[in-house]
């Protein structure tokens, strides 16, 4: 196992995080997630603003006394959750310093750890030109070592075919749940590829979290000069006299691409997080994922 992927301090922090799906799914077994069917052992889940028609019994009068505002306590029946981690293992993920694949493996490991710690069913699959090796969904903390061992074996290779990979996975999966897609989304087919792939997951009722990992050099390259650019995935090369004008055009292209992606995710209820390998990994997990709706402190 790659011991360097997660240090002890980091694992300790993850212990306090739980993975919560925005949607409530009916699990195969009891878990730590609220069920849309409120049962007999409801746990407090959250507050929300009082809406006309809400049951007065769930109004928190203590808060009303302090804030003079009405909040309704929400309870949920806990169920287990299937977490599908889809990790991009194409050749392009080997780019960057540190490599994007290392960064992505840590994200996947962290999320898997949190899922297993919350007694969720966690499965991992890698993809490049198609779905590759996968770790079948499993539950229990003891599976953490299997997860880490699996992740440590992941090696980037081959070109990316996002639409085919995600479509295949969506069709193949028998228990849709939370799909965490970790990728750089750099597919030769451009925006059409990720659109088809992500929509396929959405159509199969996956709750999708998209984590895009990019290197700083991909977002804003700075090297000028006579460059022979070699595509890591296809091996295709182009000679470019890179100057400030071209770099500006490149940055503009990237900005448009990311803007469209963000807009697409927002329109399709896909949680989208973009990160760069220069952002400390711990910050990403603890801060960025915390801002989403899937994690809550116990």
């Amino acid at each position, binding site marked *: 196992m790659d011991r360097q992927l997660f240090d002890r301090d980091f694992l300790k922090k993850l212990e306090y995080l739980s993975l919560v799906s925005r949607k409530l799914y009916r699990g195969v077994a009891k878990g730590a997630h609220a069920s849309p069917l409120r049962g007999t052992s409801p746990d407090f889940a959250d507050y929300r603003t009082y809406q006309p028609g809400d049951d007065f019994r769930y109004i928190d009068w203590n808060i009303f006394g302090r804030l003079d505002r009405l909040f309704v306590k929400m309870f949920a029946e806990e169920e287990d959750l299937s977490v599908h981690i889809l990790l991009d293992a194409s050749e392009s993920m080997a780019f960057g310093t540190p490599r994007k694949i290392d960064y992505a493996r840590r994200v996947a490991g962290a999320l898997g750890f949190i899922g297993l710690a919350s007694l969720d069913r966690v499965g991992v699959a890698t993809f490049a030109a198609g779905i590759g090796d996968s770790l079948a969904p499993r539950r229990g903390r003891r599976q953490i070592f299997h997860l880490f061992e699996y992740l440590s074996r992941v090696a980037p290779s081959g070109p*990316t075919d996002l639409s085919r990979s995600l479509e295949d996975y969506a069709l193949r999966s028998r228990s849709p749940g939370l799909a965490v897609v970790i990728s750089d989304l750099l597919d030769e087919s451009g925006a059409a590829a990720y659109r088809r792939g992500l929509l396929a997951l959405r159509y199969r009722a996956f709750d999708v979290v998209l984590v895009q990992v990019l290197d700083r050099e991909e977002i804003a390259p700075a090297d000028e000069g006579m460059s022979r650019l070699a595509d890591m995935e296809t091996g295709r090369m182009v000679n470019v*006299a890179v100057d400030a004008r071209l770099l500006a055009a490149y940055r503009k292209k990237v900005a448009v691409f990311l803007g469209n992606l963000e807009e697409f995710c927002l329109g399709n209820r896909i949680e989208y997080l973009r990160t760069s390998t220069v952002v400390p990994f711990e910050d990403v997990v603890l801060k960025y994922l915390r801002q989403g709706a899937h994690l809550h402190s116990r």
Partner: protein
Amino acid sequence: MSLASPLALLALLLVPLVIILHSRAVRWRRREVSSLLFWSEVLRENRASMRIRRILRNLVLLVECLAIAAVALALAGPLFARRGGPGGDVILVLDTTASMKAREGSRTRFDEARGRALEALSDLGRGSRMLVIAAGRTPGLAVPFTDDRETLRRAIQAAQATDEPGDLRDAVLLALSLRDASRGDRLLVITDGAFDSLGDIDPARPWMRWVRVGAARSNIGITSLAFRRTGGEGNAAAGGYEMFLSLRSFSARPATFPLTVSAGPSVVVRKQVTLAPGSARGISVPWTGPTSGRVTAEIGVSDDLAADDRAFAVFVPARGVRVRLIGEGNFFLETALSSLPNLTVSRVSAAEALAASDGPDVTIFDGTVVPPLGKGAYIVIDSVPAGLPLRAAGTRDGLRVTNANLSHPLLASVTLEGVVIGQALRLEPGPGFTELAAAGGTPVMLAWDQGELKLLLIGFDVRESDLPLRPAFPVLLANALGWFFPSWLSVQAEQLQAGAPALLSSAAGQAVTVTLPGGGSRSLAGTGQPVEFTETSTTGFYRVQGGGEPREIAVNLASPGESNIEPRFEVSVDGEAPADPVDQNKGARVPLWSAFAVAAFLLAAVEWAAWLRETAVARQGARR
């Protein structure tokens, strides 16, 4: 702008070669990228300007191309023809000597020179003026400084080459004296270079432009024609003359040609002459023809200069001389004069001489006061003429002649050694007098030959010496008359060199008309004094009427230096080898090769710096 070596521009072919090499050898730095997704779109949208920018961006390539261009231009030797601005005038020296009449194909050298001069006129900068000097035997101002193009054009078109020999040095000196260096005046000399040197004039000054016309040509010419007496002194009509003719070849091939010498319509000499290449030959034959009228010598050659293929002479008959003797009477003098032929002697007193209206040929003052002397021939005995740098500081007694200048024509065949003189004037001559004889350290006999005044001065009374008793006395008088009038006793074959002035007798109020060899005529106003006729630029016979008996003047080229029409004058610039003796096209044009060489050097330095920078950038990129 012109180029000395246009072929050097072929070096510019290296520019595309360097571009090709650069495009092939450009050091592309390999960079792996995760995807060409964005780059492909960027390149597709910027494809049009990419290639140009790729080249322009490559500073090394750009600088190398510029350096090659600069080197090519430097090798091509660009010359910048400085146009005259308002402060720079042009002094045009146009060679009009006889060699410029040499044929160059269907044209003469002067035709080409005229064309070059008109080109120079068309190149004359706005506001610049031009002055034209015709360089013949003596330089003449054809057109003074003017910016009137039409006047200059007409003057250049009307200019003609002459049969005159000439020294271009005088014309260049005149041009230099007219040049205003502060205004940046320039000299343009158009010549065939058929002369040896300019003396101490440096022809390679940057503001002097030499334009050479003509090429190597062959010529054979008559360089002199003369007649001399061989005997029968005083009996010219009986013959006793010898003709001397000089011929010279300036050809690279031997030549055989006929020589014909005619006296009027009669052919006197006819013979075949053979000349080796570059040789000279003198032909001396007894003259059997008449000793009056025209003589024409002609060689039957086909060469490139016609002016020296014929030579001319005119026999002038012996003339009588009128002598006026002023004095109290001198038996010895009168006896000696009476023994000389072809003389008319009249003796008058000083008062009678002053009253006389007509002038003799020779006036002899014998012991009388001599007034200031005008033009003419004089013998002064035992007196000092006024108006000349000569004074008599008393007298000396008991002298004996010790020194005599026997080389002077007045003392030819005259023996004065030991002549005893009872009393002589203590003469103190100034500049201009020639001492003929001295006694006791004091000159006793002097000659003056300045302007048109010839004088023999005898500083003692001949009656108080033994000179009249010696044969030297009549010989001295005869020499004096012959010195005064060469044609006194014998016919003369007179001739002038083309361009030399001729002195013509004139009568007051009577015009002197000169008929030129070509048929035209010139009239000169008679003043009673000899008048100068200068339009003798063409060889041939000139007929003079008025001012006395009609006479003829023969004019010849008679110049071996001018007959040599081979261009031989060389201009060396800054001590360099004189590759092109007389620069045809360059002259005062400013060479720019050094500026381009400096530019090439600077560009090479920039290229080096750019290469260093590029290398440093590449290393930084490799480290990243």
